[in-house]
């Protein structure tokens, strides 16, 4: 009996303490609401609208700018795929920084969704001996080729299956997305991804307000918080409006190709049918939608 009583009082005290803490932090209604917000996939359209209005308001207060946050759903009959011409890429890293700007990646601590690996032609694709920190006067360097790696948008993704809270999933158009509000930061997905394509916000992300891209998607480039995982979304805020991803448009050698796998007239289909194509770590059966090819 005595034991029971002490447990009850313990529980009571804990609950009291937590409420006191809640009161002490000055949590307002919106923050509470955000805290109790459910998984994005279970929200009704109205709830999504409310959340997005709140977000736009919040960002406006924080950054003193107008933001458009979209929750646009996937288009019918669209499955995105990407192709990269290994015989063209010169390793200039323009895509890396275009991506950082477009997708509001943290400048400090630094996060890059795209990693350009420099490899020796003699060794072929050899991740163990590749170099991401190369910095010569001019690229391409003799005897080397360049292999940019970002999320491979796998058809059989491992990262989504290991998520204990289903905060990451594959959209009908093939894009693997993260609900940053639902992510608990356990980083299982990072361990599961064989491509190192997921990145963790170890610190509060810092982005200069004037460099923020105000055209946002809820599942894409809206500012992340400390303690959540982020990744390439094929520029979901652009491609669902029909635009090419940012890295495609910036590439100075036209090595990057993007399109709809289900459209037989698309560039992607032409490449798959006519070029020598490879995917990374094929043996893992992740079935990437990111194809590397040789244009010559």
């Amino acid at each position, binding site marked *: 009996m005595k034991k029971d009583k002490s447990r009850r009082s313990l529980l*009571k005290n804990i609950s*009291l303490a937590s*409420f*006191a803490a*809640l*009161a002490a932090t000055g949590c307002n*209604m919106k923050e509470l609401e955000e805290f*109790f917000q*459910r*998984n994005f*996939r*279970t*929200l*009704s359209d109205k709830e999504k609208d409310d959340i997005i209005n709140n977000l736009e308001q919040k960002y406006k207060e924080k950054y003193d700018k107008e933001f458009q946050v979209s929750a646009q*759903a*996937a*288009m*019918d009959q*669209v499955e995105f795929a990407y192709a990269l011409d290994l015989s063209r890429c*010169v390793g*200039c*890293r*323009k895509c890396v*920084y275009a991506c950082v700007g477009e997708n509001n990646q943290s400048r400090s*601590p*630094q996060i*890059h969704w795209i*990693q350009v690996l420099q490899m020796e032609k003699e060794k072929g694709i050899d991740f163990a001996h590749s170099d*991401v*920190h*190369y*910095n010569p*006067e*001019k*690229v391409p360097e003799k005897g080397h080729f360049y292999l940019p790696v970002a999320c491979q948008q796998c058809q059989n993704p491992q990262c989504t299956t290991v998520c204990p809270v289903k905060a990451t999933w594959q959209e*009908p*158009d093939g894009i693997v997305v993260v609900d940053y509000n639902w992510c608990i930061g356990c980083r299982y997905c990072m361990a599961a991804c064989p491509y190192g394509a997921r990145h963790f916000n*170890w*610190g*509060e992300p810092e982005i200069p307000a004037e460099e923020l891209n105000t055209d946002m998607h809820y599942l894409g480039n809206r500012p992340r918080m400390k303690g959540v995982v982020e990744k390439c979304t094929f520029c979901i805020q652009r*491609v*669902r409006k*029909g*635009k*090419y991803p940012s890295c495609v448009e910036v590439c*100075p*050698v*036209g090595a990057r*190709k993007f399109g*709809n796998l289900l*459209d*037989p*007239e*698309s*560039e992607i289909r*032409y*490449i798959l049918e*006519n*070029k020598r194509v490879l995917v990374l770590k094929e043996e893992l059966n992740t079935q990437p939608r990111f194809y590397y090819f040789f*244009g010559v």
Partner: protein
Amino acid sequence: MIRNHFVLKDDFQLIKTMNMKLINIQTRKFRLLFLGFIITLLYSCSTNEANSGNNESGIQNSGENSLKNSTSGTEIAVEAPPLTDGIFPCNDCHSEIEPNPERRELVDMHDDITAMFNHDSENRWCLDCHDINNRDSLRLASGKLLDFKESYKLCGQCHGEKLRDWKVGVHGKRTGEWNGKKEYLLCVHCHNPHAPKFEGITPEPPPVMQENISYMNRKNDEQ
């Protein structure tokens, strides 16, 4: 589901008012009441979750924008890049000069082009591409005159494979919309026709070495 949402909101209201009273509460009675609220709160949360689980159709995004004319994306060729200042129209000078079809190295005029010329220079020279009688035109091997805006046809005479890939958007760069209006770049936007091989470019800075990344946020440290 919506109803539950409102229930949840009511709970929030209650919590808020209770928070304000919290300091005054000392009696056992109120403590018990609090426990009751937590339980109702948790319960309503869990029912919300349970209800939402049934809403499987909500998970599938019902896309409104169907891709209607996926294949008929219209492509727009952009303007040819501007020619070097002051040399076009070529006929301003060339109409007064007697054409000399003899292959030779130019020394007085266009020596800048001669200096950089690197496009099968052993076998080719100006009049293989420029028309001898009308310098404002290019000339195909067939003798057909060609506007500078259609220079890709001239390139394609030798580089047929590249032309084929370029037409389907695989060689070279396209910008615009993946399912709609696209903009081509012409061969000469990227390749100098007199020296088409790409020059090396300066790379953007490499990523910070892992050991140098400061994960500790300054603001948080201060707190």
